[in-house]
């Protein structure tokens, strides 16, 4: 308990002093994960909705692949990312390894199956009258899609939050393709692992509390945004 308390005090001290290295890692964690989740939402939401509303050859397989994708270990995505972005990889010419961009790319791959699977489940679980009412009132494809998103807002919000939580706390991708370079690719998750590895438990715990605060803040913002957007189907 004493360790938790001292970690809490240390967290307050770091935040109060705006310690540059921690603030830098916190900011990177926030923008890398937000960008990855935003991109994954743009890709995953239409896919999840289509899977919920349309049945086609291989539909069951597509749903199973998306669900299985949620269980892929981050370290595996890290290795795949490394293979892609290393000098000998297909994207090696871009010279992006050990920059934040491969972390964003890896986290997109991490988040897409989550967004697809949960949004698919949420839209599929909608009352059948939603689709019937929208269709009988003459809603076109795009308006029907917006209506499904609006009506399934809670599930979709959970999809986005789950994806964000998974991305902001992941370690495997950030270490493998980011390299945990101070001031360049270090995120809060890699910083926590580093500090704890050095025996600096209080600093590790302090950073964990900062990470928790960021997650709570993002949860609040997304919840408020979902309420606002879904008022206008």
């Amino acid at each position, binding site marked *: 308990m004493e360790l938790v308390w001292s970690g809490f005090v240390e967290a307050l001290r770091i935040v109060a002093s705006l310690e540059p290295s921690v603030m830098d890692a916190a900011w990177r964690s926030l923008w890398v994960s937000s960008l990855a989740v935003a991109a994954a939402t743009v890709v995953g939401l239409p896919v999840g909705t289509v899977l919920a509303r349309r049945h086609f050859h291989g539909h069951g397989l597509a749903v199973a692949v998306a669900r299985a994708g949620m269980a892929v270990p981050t370290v595996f995505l890290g290795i795949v990312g490394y293979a892609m972005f290393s000098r000998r990889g297909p994207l090696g010419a871009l010279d992006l390894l050990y920059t934040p961009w491969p972390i964003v790319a890896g986290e997109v791959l991490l988040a897409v199956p989550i967004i697809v699977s949960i949004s698919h489940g949420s839209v599929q679980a909608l*009352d059948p*009258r*939603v689709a*019937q*009412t*929208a*269709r*009988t*009132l*003459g*809603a*076109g494809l795009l*308006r029907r899609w917006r*209506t499904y998103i*609006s*009506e399934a*807002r809670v599930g979709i919000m959970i999809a986005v939050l789950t994806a964000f939580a998974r991305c902001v706390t992941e370690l495997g991708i950030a270490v493998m393709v980011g390299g945990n370079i101070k001031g360049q690719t270090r995120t809060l998750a890699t910083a926590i692992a580093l500090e704890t590895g050095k025996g600096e438990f209080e600093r590790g715990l302090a950073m964990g509390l900062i990470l928790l605060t960021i997650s709570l803040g993002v949860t609040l913002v997304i919840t408020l945004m979902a309420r606002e957007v*879904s*008022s*206008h*189907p």
Partner: protein
Amino acid sequence: MIRIDRLEVRRNGRIICRVPRLDVEPGERLGIVGANGSGKSTLLIILAGLEQATRGRCEVSAPVEQRVYVHQQPYLFRGTVLSNATYGLRSRAMPRGQANQTAMRWLTRLGIREQAHRRVDNLSGGERRRVALARALAIRPMILLLDEPLADLDEQGSETVSSILNALDDVTVLIASPTDLPHGLTTRTYTITQAISAED
């Protein structure tokens, strides 16, 4: 306007709706009366073009976007009464201002103008039904398919809805009900009999 010949709808090998013959003329107000489970709702859903019949012929001389079906328990989308009432109009790309005006006219006729900016979550059953009717009527469809439209309505509400439906000369209206409809609401009644369950 509508011509049905030996229509049959099966689900899981069971017949859930059977209509041997039915013709409906333009502008007619037809009551479809039958016991629970006789297939009234299914018939309206087929006529709305939302599902397909298993067998038989069902010809409707109005495009699908000109047929509106209102559920027995209408579904209102998240938002306000007005945003629901304008849904069909906005789906037809009507400018927001014009859609609001049109919807407000129908909300006024149905006696729920004051509720226009209220969120639908807090409405009573009767109010929800009126909103769904206003939403359907605002489109001015060629065919209006109403599933028990007088349920949940008080006496005054029933009279209001009945008088509005009576005034729709250019709209073909089909009204499903498990019991006889009020005198004068329909011009003719078709009795749908319980579909006989059968395996192939």
